[in-house]
């Protein structure tokens, strides 16, 4: 079937198209060349409408153990927000941590077509993939957690050569069906198990004697040498600690020029100045990001209201548990593989620290020059639920609205911040970069995030409006792989997305030693640990798309 989208104003940063009126043709789920003499089955007239590729969220907790525990911990969220089933949609519930079906519906209604789960514990990967397999409409993918796993730390402590470590990393990517590698508080989660409460970047861990910096360097190098497109996804040391700005800067400088993605950088940009020993480090961080082209960041913006923080960083979550609202929390250690900490949280605009966190996130957005290297996230649900993205986009695009909001927060925080003086307003083109093209480029998804010939037809169409929050919360049309799934902000068809993975080459002989380790220490056999393709396409709902590991940079 041939579909024509005609007369829309196209924003396609991958091809430098900034608001040009163009026609787009869709055939068999792909964007194609203008056809000669072929009958066109459907025409959508998009005069005065904005056409972008489907949005991509590179960091949002949508599947896996921590999300499930958060759902169990917060039944009130589900009672208060029921989603009754309809002829088309399955029932669900929840607002701050929605159930799987609700997650897919809410994302698609906002024009998102791909979402990536940043904390897939290899030990729990099967459960994470099955849970994500229940999320309709959107594409999924995960980053496997390494850096606190017992086996990896043993390798580092024994100073195994980089080649063997690379094989292990590649094997984990393959076995857990993931698109990238994430490290959370490198070494810190492991140190917590030995009763330590803080681990600095250059401090040897308590048992293996490996420093967080060594872990970061070895992992970043492994991914670089394996040519995995997505760089090491880092949740650094000392999350949320006043003064952690120094740690973050040191992490950026110390990665030796290797590509690195710093997740929810807002939580890592705090100074320790002022009466309350808490200040904004946004300017220094943004400057460091601007100076180092190997660094990309996503912000992890906080927005005010009730949410729940879910993190594998059990060390920092434990430190925060006294602030839990409502007063309950959960911590889990998972087979010496990684951690898990759930702490419900309510961000208040009249609270100095929360208000300053809000300004820090926005400052980073506005002070990082290159929109290709900063990404729109709230670290859902840690900073705010993902449904608040349209509000966040309006804050970035509308300076007077931003200043109105700034006037309502804690006055000391507003005074301490330079936000009011920043005049930058994001353009539609820049929003398209940070939520589409940049994300696809960073993840190595060559056929997503743009509207070039051959790309997957993930397309979102908005009506141009002055109120950007309204505009981005209710797209006119959303196409997923060429099928119209949303019309006027309502889902009209339910499809199933793809799981994106990478499969770097590796020497399979490492399985012998790994197998011994599994037999001796772990609850399952190596054969059960590996997730097979047939499991991913269970019931025909899932698909796998393998992305090539790119050609080695000649530089």
């Amino acid at each position, binding site marked *: 079937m041939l579909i024509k989208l005609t007369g829309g104003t196209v924003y396609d940063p991958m091809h430098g198209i900034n608001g040009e009126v163009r026609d787009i043709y869709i055939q068999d789920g792909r964007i194609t060349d203008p056809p000669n003499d072929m009958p066109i089955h459907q025409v959508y007239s998009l005069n005065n409408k904005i056409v972008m590729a489907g949005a991509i969220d590179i960091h949002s907790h949508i599947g896996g153990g921590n999300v499930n525990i958060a759902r*169990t911990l917060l*039944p*009130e969220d589900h009672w208060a927000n029921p989603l009754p089933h309809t002829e088309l949609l399955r*029932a669900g519930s929840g607002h701050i941590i929605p159930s799987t079906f609700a997650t897919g519906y809410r994302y698609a209604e906002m024009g998102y077509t791909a979402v990536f789960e940043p904390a897939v514990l290899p030990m729990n990967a099967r459960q994470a993939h099955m849970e994500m397999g229940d999320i309709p409409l959107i594409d999924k993918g995960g980053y496997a957690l390494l850096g606190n796993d017992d086996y990896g730390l043993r390798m580092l402590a024994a100073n195994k050569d980089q080649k063997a470590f690379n094989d292990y990393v590649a094997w984990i990517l393959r076995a857990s069906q993931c698109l990238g590698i994430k490290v959370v508080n490198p070494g810190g989660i492991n140190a917590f198990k030995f009763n330590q409460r803080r681990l600095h970047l250059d401090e040897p861990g308590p048992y293996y004697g490996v420093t967080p910096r060594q872990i970061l360097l070895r992992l970043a190098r492994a991914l670089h040498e394996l040519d995995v497109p997505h760089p090491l996804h880092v949740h650094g040391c000392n999350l949320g600690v006043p003064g952690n700005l120094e740690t973050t800067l040191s992490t950026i400088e110390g990665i030796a020029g290797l590509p690195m993605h710093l997740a929810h950088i807002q939580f890592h940009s705090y100074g320790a100045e002022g009466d309350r020993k808490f200040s904004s480090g946004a300017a220094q961080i943004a400057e460091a990001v601007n100076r180092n082209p190997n660094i990309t960041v996503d912000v992890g913006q906080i927005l005010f209201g009730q949410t729940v923080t879910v993190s594998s960083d059990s060390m920092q979550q434990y430190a925060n548990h006294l602030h839990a609202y*409502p007063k*309950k929390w959960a911590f889990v250690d998972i087979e010496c593989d990684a951690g898990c900490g759930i702490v419900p949280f309510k961000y208040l605009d009249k609270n100095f620290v929360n208000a300053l966190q809000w300004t820090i996130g926005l400052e980073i957005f506005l002070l990082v020059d290159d929109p290709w290297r900063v990404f729109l996230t709230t670290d859902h649900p840690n900073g705010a639920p993902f449904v608040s993205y349209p509000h966040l986009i309006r804050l970035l695009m509308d300076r007077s609205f931003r200043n109105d909001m700034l006037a309502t927060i804690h006055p000391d925080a507003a005074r301490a911040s330079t936000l009011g003086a920043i005049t930058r307003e994001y353009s539609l083109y820049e929003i398209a970069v940070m939520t589409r093209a940049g994300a696809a480029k960073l993840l190595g998804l060559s056929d997503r995030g743009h509207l070039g010939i051959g790309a997957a037809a993930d397309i979102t169409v908005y009506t141009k409006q002055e109120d950007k929050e309204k505009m981005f919360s209710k797209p006119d049309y959303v196409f997923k792989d060429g099928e119209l799934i949303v019309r006027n902000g309502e889902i009209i068809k339910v499809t199933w997305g793809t799981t994106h993975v990478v499969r770097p080459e590796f020497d399979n002989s490492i399985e012998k030693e790994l197998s011994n380790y599994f037999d001796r220490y772990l609850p399952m056999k190596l054969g059960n640990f590996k997730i097979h393709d047939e499991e991913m396409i269970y019931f025909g709902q899932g698909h796998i798309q393998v992305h090539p590991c790119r050609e080695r940079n000649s530089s």
Partner: protein
Amino acid sequence: MSALTLILKKTPTQQVDVSPLIPENLTDLSKPEIGAIILVTGNQHVRTDTIFTISGDDPERLIFTGETTKLDYIGKNCSIGQINVQGSCGAYTGMGMKGGQINIYGNTGAFTACEMRGGLVRIEGDGGDFLGAARPGNQIGMMGGMVIVTGNAGARVGDQMRRGTLLIEGNAGNYAGSRMLAGTIAILGKTGNYPGYGMKRGTLLLWHSPNKLGATFNDCGCHTLGFLPLLLESYRSLETRFAFLPKTTGRARRFCGDMASLGRGEILILVP
């Protein structure tokens, strides 16, 4: 005016959520309007008049009759009027109730009067498990009001109860008053194992020694407690066996606990 009576036409195949049918929702409605209220049963939405025959005109007095065991959430969040159930009922009867009265002439399912805040629930039969408890996952159960059970009660009676009174004329199951925060539970009959498990504060008033008591309860000996006759006197106006106890009752053996929790609770076992 005669009581508004809802008669089940036939036994529903699935449990029916009748939470919209409470007096304050019905006061200004005509019979056809009441009949048009949408109820949920299984995964279906049905009109009230497809499963109930409606008669009478006083919504302040509501009567459910027929195969009422299939009805869940009777009197949910009810704050005025009186609801009578002519038979046993399903789960969550009187959940979150704030005022008024519910009379059940039969047994109730689990979670009766859970998270209740005020009013009176009278069960002329047995109460199920988790009577006056919190909904699963919630941290605070019953917060006020009174429940009278003329028969027996199930396990975990008053789990995480915070305020209010449970009067049980028959026996209670295991873990009565578990994780109690405050409030009073009085049990005339026998009690199962481990009453007061994890209780923080509150009072369990027993007329029989429990089978097993947790090791984390301290025996504080026998006392003549001045407040006991006053407490029992306050039940005189109620329609229950607690109204006819001898006026001299005042001596009790006191156990404090649960020391594994906050430990300010007490189990009083009355000495005859």
